[in-house]
């Protein structure tokens, strides 16, 4: 929260996202500890090769963070910290949105890949955790996609000055989803 204290005018939206990030982090920590305990509980852990498309998806997600950064750079700001949209910003944001959806589509392909190998949710603790982790991340990212869509709509409709809360919040959350995915990828590639 120290970061917040530095930020002058307090933006509840940004604070809220930080708190949300804390909650999501906590719950994924819980899932991780569950994984560790479960893996140690019985010798039935089955190792399998992660669907290669995951690495492509990772690049897609990283790219989406990049485009989001560009979107923020190309937005106009006034001293009061308010923002106004620009055509480039809209384009970059649209790109971010598209890449986000592409990522989720890629995850679906990864699941079908596993299913075709006969690895389903209940097949083995390892596959169970794989679906749980990737599925929950996809759901959380979907939230980010919705937020980005809402933001895009606002920027396109109102070219005037608006406050930056929604933009800051969305990009904060989006980058966090990015980091969370990197963490999950490392975790999965370590235990699978």
């Amino acid at each position, binding site marked *: 929260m120290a970061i917040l204290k530095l930020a002058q005018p*307090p933006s509840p939206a940004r604070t809220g996202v930080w708190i949300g990030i804390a909650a999501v982090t906590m719950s994924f920590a819980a899932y991780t500890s569950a994984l560790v*305990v*479960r893996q140690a509980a019985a010798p039935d852990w089955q190792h399998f090769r992660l669907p290669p498309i995951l690495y492509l998806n990772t690049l897609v997600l990283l790219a989406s963070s990049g485009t989001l950064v560009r979107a923020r750079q190309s937005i106009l700001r006034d001293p009061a910290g308010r923002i106004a949209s620009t055509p480039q910003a809209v384009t970059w944001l649209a790109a971010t949105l598209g890449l986000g959806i592409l990522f989720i589509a890629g995850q679906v392909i990864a699941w079908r890949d596993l299913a075709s190998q006969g690895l389903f949710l209940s097949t083995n*603790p390892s596959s169970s955790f794989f679906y749980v982790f990737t599925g929950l991340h996809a759901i959380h990212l979907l939230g980010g996609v919705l937020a980005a869509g809402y933001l895009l709509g606002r920027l396109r409709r109102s070219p005037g000055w608006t*406050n930056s809360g929604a933009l800051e919040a969305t990009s904060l959350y989006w980058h966090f989803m990015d980091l969370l995915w990197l963490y999950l990828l490392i975790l999965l590639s370590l235990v699978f």
Partner: protein
Amino acid sequence: MPDMSAAPAVPSGESARRAAHAPRGFLRKQVFSLDHKVIGKQYLDLALAAVVTGMVLSWLMRFHLGFPDTAIPGLEKLAPNAAAGGIMTPELYLSLMTMHGTLMVFFVLTTAPFAGFGNFVLPLQIGAEDMAFPRFNMMSFWVTFVAFLVLIAAFFVPQGPPLSGWTAYAPLSAIGKDAGPGQGTGQTLWVISIALFCVGQLLGSLNFIATTLDLRTRGMTFSRLPFSTWAWFITAVMALIAFSVLLPACVLLLLDRVAGTSFFIPAGLVASDRLQPHAGGSPLLWQHLFWFFGHPEVYIAILPGFGIISQILPVFARKPLLGPRVFVACLIAIAFLSYTVWGHHMFLSGMNPVSATLFSVPTLIITIPATIVTLLWIGTVYGARLRFTTAALFCLGFISVFVTGGISGFFLAQPSIDTYLHGTYFVVGHFHFVMGVAAMFGIFAGAYFWFPKMYGRMLDERLGKLHFVLTLIGVYCIFMPMHWLGLAGNVRRYSAFTDEYMQGSLPLHRFITIAALFTGAAQLIFFFNLIWSRWRGSPAPANPWQATTLEWSVSSPPPPDNFGRAGAPPVSHGPDEYGVAGPGGDYVMQAAPPQPATA
């Protein structure tokens, strides 16, 4: 400290102002309202519905324990399957017990003191126009409401509600119908309900934290924050962490039940002659996840009580709280320690005996801040000028029952004694005193104190005092004997006591039953008071108690936008400046101009 006066400039804030200024029609005003005051009341009404249900369930259980062979009039109509001839079946008893625990812990002790009073009072106390995210706030309530409906729905499925207790230990809760009636659909509904509840409370705590951090009015520094707001803030942080762990636990349990995974179910289980198609899961994993939430949950239920008491006691003692900084420090210490003690619920669970001793140390240490807080309250009473309003009486009662319940914790915190008392009524007595009765006393104190602010009418004080006296005597008659039962080895969660060595305790059970019905009847006084005073009570002035915090500087009930377009006045005084020469008498409002020097 940066200037925190900035009114919310985010869309949610604007929508809040819109909603607050121009509530369109009954639906937006009363049902799907974005106004924290309405949402707070909705939470309290939900808690009321839950507490009435939970209490009736406990009457049925107590009646069955006290008079096992007597048919309960009307029960056969309610449960023709499970109570043929009005005689309760064991599974009905256990499902009543499960629903009682779940309703009380989640839908009463979490919603009422935290989500209910917190929602109504916190923004007023910090001088905010509304919560930071009114839409999330509304969602928080409605998700919780749906969770409540899903839980109640378990009463109406063929095999009835689950019977695995509010802790839903796996694999009893995980393997489905083979574990017994109610473990099929009923248990599934339970898991879904609790998962939804987690979502609702996460949205709620997110709001509490953001609001307290960002929406405090000018001059409302943390050192001037009212103690109740402190407690709600700390509770929100705890809830955020606790429910983000319970939610995953519920998701995994649900998958074990419906998707055939094996997170909590080990291999080779044979239930009802059927080899269960699972392998490798760990029942202890559920216990760890659940109690990592479960123990903090105890403090989520009681900390708001701490805050409410520390807020109300000075008002009626007409003197400041003793050691305010120490008090807040203790709250934080308790909140922190509560995450290091969950293992004390698992001393006998077969986890490493060494870790049992490790868990028992923080469990005992957490009694130090708790003791300090209690002493602070008693020290606040010293040299006071006590005004015995009903709210004040419930504060004093809170201190008494909290001491009683806290001290029996000394026994259970020690593995070597827990090994004798673990599964007995001693535990039931302990947690009912410390988190049930104490938290309820906090709720009652808050209700008698803030009702005027909520509905613009006073609760009847004569009825209130009668209610208090009967309740205080009643709870001691119910829960103190449970410690004696426990010492005699009387096992809890039994629907009947067939074992010879327990026969000696049957008269005591009968006494408890009578006391419980008596105390339950006493609560009808409270319910009548609530309903009658809501419309017929004497009109309440803005500040009937001569209190200092901001909520008392606005009309009762407050206008939709709380402090009007101008926003809340700047704050230049502490939350409990009583016993000093002030304009209105022996107190200085927080919002009063800074001149008068505190005595």
